[in-house]
């Protein structure tokens, strides 16, 4: 028993970077999990990855004006992300084009512009790689950024919760009731971009998008209500981070993929045996139905 405890905690006791990685990953999970639940509800699940590419022109402008300054590039990325998200949201509200298609169009244009801008300077440095951080490299400023963003997100989600849920599930009703659905949605998009860009700079794309989406998709197999899904998503994200970091430590595999694969494993398990829509459940229900049918035919 003692050996297990030691194995599970010693790496974090010994090394500062492990503690920071855990803290950063947990801060991310607590905010990204709930956001991910909303993304799944709104069918915007691929938005996270697309956003990683959409912010390139802002990053490029930041680089072109201020050189390799992380804050300039992050600010540029943030501004671009917000612009893209808001424009896409606007187009989807005003035209027949749906949100995912609208966003796809905007992010592709943005990406093309970004690639062009990067090539203007002549140096062929991979800007995005310079911008994106890694979970193992969290310094004080980075940790502060991710926890601050996480706190702000949680507070905002708490305030907007009702409106967001209704907006997701019955937007016409909300509009009829005169609710500020559009504002809530814009606020949600802003929160999303903030989390993504800050997350990219601190933790890298794979990790941020993965922690945002995988626990959320897994959570819906265990609980019904949006609120409990959000809590479960956060918890699953935290658990995956912990497990992933340990595997990365003991098995010599890179940290972010380890965390994401841990989350992925949880997802597969959820799909298989989750009580709400899991495959096992499906099989059991179909068997029960057949048994009942046979019974009713027999009697």
């Amino acid at each position: 028993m003692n050996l297990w405890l030691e194995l599970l905690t010693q790496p974090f006791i010994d090394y500062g970077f492990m503690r920071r990685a855990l803290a950063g990953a947990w801060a991310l999970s607590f905010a990204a999990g709930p956001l991910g639940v909303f993304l799944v509800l709104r069918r915007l699940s691929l938005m996270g990855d697309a956003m990683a590419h959409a912010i390139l022109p802002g990053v490029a402008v930041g680089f072109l004006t201020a050189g390799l300054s992380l804050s300039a590039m992050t600010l540029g990325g943030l501004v671009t992300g917000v612009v893209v998200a808001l424009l896409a949201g606007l187009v989807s509200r005003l035209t027949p084009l749906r949100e995912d298609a609208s966003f796809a169009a905007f992010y592709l244009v943005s990406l093309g512009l970004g690639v062009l801008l990067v090539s203007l300077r002549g140096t062929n440095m991979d800007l995005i790689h310079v911008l994106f951080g890694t979970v193992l490299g969290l310094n004080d400023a980075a940790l502060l950024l991710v926890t601050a963003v996480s706190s702000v997100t949680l507070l905002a989600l708490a305030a907007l919760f009702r409106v967001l849920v209704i907006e997701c599930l019955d937007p016409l009703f909300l509009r009829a009731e005169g609710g500020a659905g559009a504002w809530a949605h814009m606020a949600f998009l802003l929160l999303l971009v903030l989390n993504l860009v800050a997350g990219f700079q601190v933790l890298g794309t794979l990790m941020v998008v993965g922690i945002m989406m995988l626990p959320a998709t897994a959570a819906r197999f265990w609980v019904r209500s949006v609120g409990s899904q959000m809590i479960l998503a956060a918890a699953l994200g935290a658990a995956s981070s912990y497990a992933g970091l340990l595997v990365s430590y003991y098995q010599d595999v890179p940290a972010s993929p380890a965390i994401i694969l841990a989350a992925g494993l949880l997802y597969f398990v959820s799909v298989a045996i989750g009580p709400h829509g899991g495959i096992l459940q499906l099989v059991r229900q179909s068997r029960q139905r057949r048994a009942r049918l046979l019974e009713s035919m027999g009697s």
Partner: protein
Amino acid sequence: MRRRPARSLSAWSAAAVLVLCGAMLPRAHAQAPSDRIRVVATFSILADMVREVGGDRLDIQAIVGPNGDAHAFEPTPRDARALGAAQVLVRNGLGFEGWLPRLLDAAGFKGLDVVASDGVRPRVLGDEEQALEAHGHETHDHEPHGHGHAGDVDPHAWQDLSNGVIYVRNIARGLAAADPAHADEYRRRADAYALRLQDEDRAWRNDLEAVPPARRVMMTTHDAFGYLGQAYGIRIVSVLGLSSEAEPAAGALARIIDQIRDRGIRAMFLEKAVNPTLMRRITQETGARIGGTLYSDTLDAPGTPAGTYLGMFRWNARLILEAMRG
């Protein structure tokens, strides 16, 4: 009346297309003939050497300019044009320019191809590092990091000044073949430059004598200094897997931190364009400091201290000495 505008429209468009085609024809033959030999060097270090040997007789262009990354370089049409018009190409060889074969095809280069590293005794990537890790831990975390795998030939031969001399002589020989009329001048300039390189080599070895052998160790994120370590007796702890492309395993990072603490490494060196967050994390946890930026496979902009090959070497040498002295 209706037909004439159509005919004139098609006539005009045909004329426009012809003019456009004519404008896009290769310009090489339209250039005013100059008596300067057109030389293209693959990257800034070679360009500087060629400049030293050839001086004003040459019209030199570098494909990968100062502060460029020759490993991850993507050629553009402009490079193909420059190469197509060149009479001499100076390249490093040893697998450094992975993008060159395709560019050569695209450019239709028909000039003289000079391999600067001809005659250099190559070393293999991973040799040093494996020797270092042997008594430490059994696992080898030499993940590929976009530059080469353990077992590949290390192309950074110019880090050893005596290899630099070989480079210079090869360049002189190539220039002499392309421009026999001035062969003597090239040879003279090459000899003078080689002397300066050898002087610098001696001075550097002298400085190193003052550092106790146990302290002759340096840590970098790039395995570009193998020849330096081998030639001048410096142990290079090259932290592979910390480049901008790869994310290390947490276990690997922990072992690196252990190594720094155990070996008492005082300073570590960043590569240009490497994500510095991991390095900073390591320095904060071990108390080692970041020793500055070393130039491994590119020069700095012209006019800066590291804008020439000798300048680059002196820059690196100074920083390495400071780091070793603690």
